[in-house]
């Protein structure tokens, strides 16, 4: 039994070691001279702007559905006035960051995994490396920093659109002015809600970029491996998002409360 389990553990340990080396390579190349600003800006555009519609639509619908689902329960308790507060806290603290990150894991991690995987299979990464250029700096550092920078921004936009969705849902069945709704939302959120949520989105962004790049960059040489890289990037990034979420919530609870 132990003998059967050993290769799996060995593989896991090897994978962890490889990821650590890759992470070290990322940090080392991040601080090297010749940062690829134009590629970084291009990646920010590709990752941020091109994900905006998907993230925005999903967040809007999530806010709308959440308000529609919450309202009957709150009405039963005579706490309908708590609806903006409940919506704001749940969207800002949890739903906004996690939903945005999961969507980005699906869209961005898979696309980075597939793109770099395809570059690996077609020897483009080898060609870059063998020419004396630095593929880590050009391909990996720019993508990881772009996701780390853009996912928090997308989350911010998603949060606002989620709250707008909630406002629309409230106005379907009741009538609340825009000013009153957003005043109540803003009044119910304080620094201790915003900061942990913002910090975790930075980690979410980093992990999405890192896993996408790692899986793609280390693809095997075969067309099948491109699909596998994209797929495993989504699975691993999604899993890590929940793990990071749990850790950040625990730590912020210990520190703040």
């Amino acid at each position, binding site marked *: 039994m132990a003998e059967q389990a050993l290769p799996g553990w060995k593989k896991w340990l090897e994978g962890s070691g490889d990821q650590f080396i890759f992470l070290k390579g990322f940090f080392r190349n991040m601080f090297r001279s010749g940062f690829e600003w134009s590629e970084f800006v291009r990646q920010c555009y590709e990752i941020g702007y091109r994900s905006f519609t998907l993230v925005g639509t999903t967040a809007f619908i999530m806010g709308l559905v959440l308000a529609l689902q919450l309202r009957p329960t709150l009405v039963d308790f005579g706490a309908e006035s708590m609806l903006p507060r409940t919506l704001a806290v749940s969207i800002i603290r949890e739903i906004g960051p996690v939903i945005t990150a999961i969507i980005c894991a699906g869209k961005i991690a898979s696309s980075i995994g597939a793109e770099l995987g*395809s570059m690996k299979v*077609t020897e*483009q990464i080898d060609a870059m*490396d*063998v*020419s*004396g250029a*630095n593929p880590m700096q050009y391909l990996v550092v720019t993508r990881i920093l772009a996701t780390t920078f853009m996912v928090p921004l997308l989350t911010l936009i998603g949060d606002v659109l989620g709250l707008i969705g909630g406002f629309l849902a409230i106005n379907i069945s009741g009538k609340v002015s825009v000013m009153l709704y957003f005043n109540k939302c803003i009044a119910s959120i304080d620094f201790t809600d915003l900061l942990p949520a913002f910090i975790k989105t930075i980690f979410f962004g980093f992990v999405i970029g890192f896993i996408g790049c790692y899986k793609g960059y280390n693809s095997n040489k075969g067309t099948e491996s491109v699909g596998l890289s994209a797929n495993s990037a989504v699975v691993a990034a999604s899993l890590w998002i929940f793990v990071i979420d749990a850790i950040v919530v625990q730590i912020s609870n210990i520190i703040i409360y």
Partner: protein
Amino acid sequence: MEEKDTIEEPKHPSSKKKEVVIHIKGLKKSFGDHHVLKHVDLDVHRGENVVILGKSGTGKSVTIECIVGMLVPDEGEVKVFGDDVPEMTEKQLKELRTKIGFLFQSGALYDSMTVRDNLEFPLTRVLRIKDQAEIDKRVEEVLDGVGLMDAIDKMPSDLSGGMRKRVGLARTLIVKPEIMLYDEPTTGLDPITSREISQLILKMQKKYKTTSIIITHDMECAEITADRVVVLNDGEFVAEGSFDEIKGSKDEFVESFF
């Protein structure tokens, strides 16, 4: 080394009394239990075109990947310009690679960039040239050399196989390397385009005065480009000489190529 059909002399005149730029001695490389290179010795002289012939999976690509430091040999010496490649630091290796051009079988063009961007990439990232006029001059010169000026703003997906190889060659030559390594440059091309690529390799070698190792199965490519041919079988070189000498070899394995 038993019954090795080694044809030492006469070598091509260009290889005589010239500096050895690539020196390989006792090179061994295995992947798991698979011993790809068992014992490889090879000296390549400045300005010489050496063709490595061999069946698929005999370690031809592994040999040139060891030269450029993509693979680390298990045993043996690999020296380029007198420096031991496996012992090099990352920085030394990077510096060495600026002097070596590597043309991949597929051309390995960066498919998210236009032909122009592909060609500018090594200039701006490897040579760190900032002057746009100098970059444009080099791009146009090298593209003109491979006869593809019209394709300058095209994407790699819009190019044919032969055009991709030409652009790949142009991208490799743009940094003016001293050594060129060609990994099956004519594979997958029709006979006419193959001949054109082979002639282009020779033309570029004369123009840029490079030392080249060409891996190929294509006998016409070998005939056009080779100053010297070495034949690799089962992880060892089994024959060496000019193309005509190899062609006249009585070795059964060597004969099977013709």
